[in-house]
């Protein structure tokens, strides 16, 4: 408790130092606002337009979480399927790696052409981005079962389903959290990239408009929101991980 509070203060201090140096440098070198705005300027823009940013954030966050949910579900279920039908693993993984290696920036405009300017292509892109880390992590988690425990369940004459429920699934849980912590920030990026290529709203759209007008304080205000949201999401998942997979050495109290 004491240690985590202390590290929290240290983190806050580092962030404050970073922004102070940035602020001081912009003022000292008199950097023009169309090159790099001071953080205070970006923050002022954010406070001056609460509704604009609130709406954009709600939309982007909604798309991210929907895409993340679908990606996690699809990746998780496919991992389970590959455990049950191990013969498929090679083929499916090759396809998944091919998909992962395709630059999403290239696919995003296509999806916009196919699916329109609404939320659907954003959710699809986000799901595609988050799907792969979940698949890989959960699959390796489900395979990482202690052989001594496999022997034991065999001696109990446990069915495949019982082994899955009582052994593989809890063994994979820490890997699910590792996947979520990687995927959640990726989900935000996915939604923003998709919005950038054509959207009627959202933080990506706000950033694109600000960028084309060289209105950098607007752009940075959106970046700050994204960074903060990504970090909060990550922290939330880390907290949840400590509560759920309490048996891991790193999460034990004392």
């Amino acid at each position, binding site marked *: 408790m004491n240690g985590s509070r202390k590290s929290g203060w240290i983190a806050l201090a580092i962030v404050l130092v970073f922004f102070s140096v940035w602020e001081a440098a912009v003022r000292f070198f008199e950097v023009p606002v169309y090159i790099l705005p001071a953080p205070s300027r970006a923050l002022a823009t954010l406070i001056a337009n609460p509704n604009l940013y609130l709406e954009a954030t709600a939309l982007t966050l909604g798309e991210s979480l929907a895409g993340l949910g679908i990606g996690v579900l699809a990746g998780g279920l496919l991992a389970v399927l590959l455990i049950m039908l191990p013969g498929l693993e090679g083929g499916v993984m090759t396809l998944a790696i091919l998909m992962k290696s395709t630059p999403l920036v290239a696919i995003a405009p296509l999806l916009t052409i196919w699916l329109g300017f609404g939320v659907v292509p954003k959710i699809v892109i986000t799901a595609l981005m988050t799907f792969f880390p979940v698949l890989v992590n959960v699959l390796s988690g489900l395979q990482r079962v*202690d052989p*001594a*425990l496999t*022997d*034991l369940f*065999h*001696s*109990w*004459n*446990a069915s495949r389903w*019982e082994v899955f429920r*009582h*052994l593989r699934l*809890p063994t994979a849980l820490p890997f699910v959290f590792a996947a979520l912590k990687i995927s959640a920030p990726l989900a935000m990026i996915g939604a923003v990239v998709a919005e950038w290529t054509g959207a009627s709203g959202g933080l990506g759209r706000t950033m694109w408009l600000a960028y084309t007008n060289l209105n950098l304080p607007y752009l940075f205000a959106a970046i700050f929101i994204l960074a903060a949201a990504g970090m909060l999401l990550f922290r939330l998942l880390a907290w949840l991980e400590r509560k759920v*997979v*309490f*048996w891991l*050495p790193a999460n*034990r109290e004392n």
Partner: protein
Amino acid sequence: MNLQIESLTHKFSSGKPPRTALSDFSLSVDSGQFVALIGTSGCGKTTLLRLVGDLLQPTHGSLTLDGQKPAEVRKSHGIAWMAQSPALLPWLTARQNVALAQQFIPVNGHPRLSVDGILERVGLSDVGNAHPFTLSGGMQQRLALGRLLAMDARLWLMDEPFAALDEITRERLTAELLELWQPLHPTVLWVTHNIYEALRLADRVVVFTPSPGRVAADVTISLPRPRREDDPRFQEILSRLRSALAYPSVGQVTS
């Protein structure tokens, strides 16, 4: 449960080079006997245990338990397995670990031991709600013993269950194991590389030759328990076992 092993051979053909773990191995064990299997590392004693427990299939030879195949006995929950790692589920409490094992055992007319009764027998009543990682190594193995009791099996297969414990805990658990075993009297195959442990526990010690494993010596120990090391008969059997381990020759049977 009696055990009949005839001309059993097991080869690990996937290894490089392929290895013969057991070669033409025969052994007959009476129901209720406590048999220690002893030998150097890699002599095939764990392989034998895994073959009996239906965790491996033999390459040649026959192996029956009360006239049945190991797979049939395993499926009717006649075999309880315990290894060097306590193999507890870390996300379950001590009580839940025992209860999970029991969940797999069908009720065969006679009442099951209660989970709390089992925890009491292995001296863990106070820590039923604790998770395994909060328990010491000795307590974890006690919990694994409790889970073994929960199986209510007629054959216990134990692969160096106390080998990872310190000497003091090990001796105490060995004594406790005997107390748990005596009223139930299942057949026990106990793999070890500790001669003293074998002598303290077993009705009979089977010494393996180095790989591929065969019976180098088969020594019946009729000393009453608890056995004392300063007993001259203990020392006499000890030196006989030592020489069998040091100069193994196939087929030497003594009693």
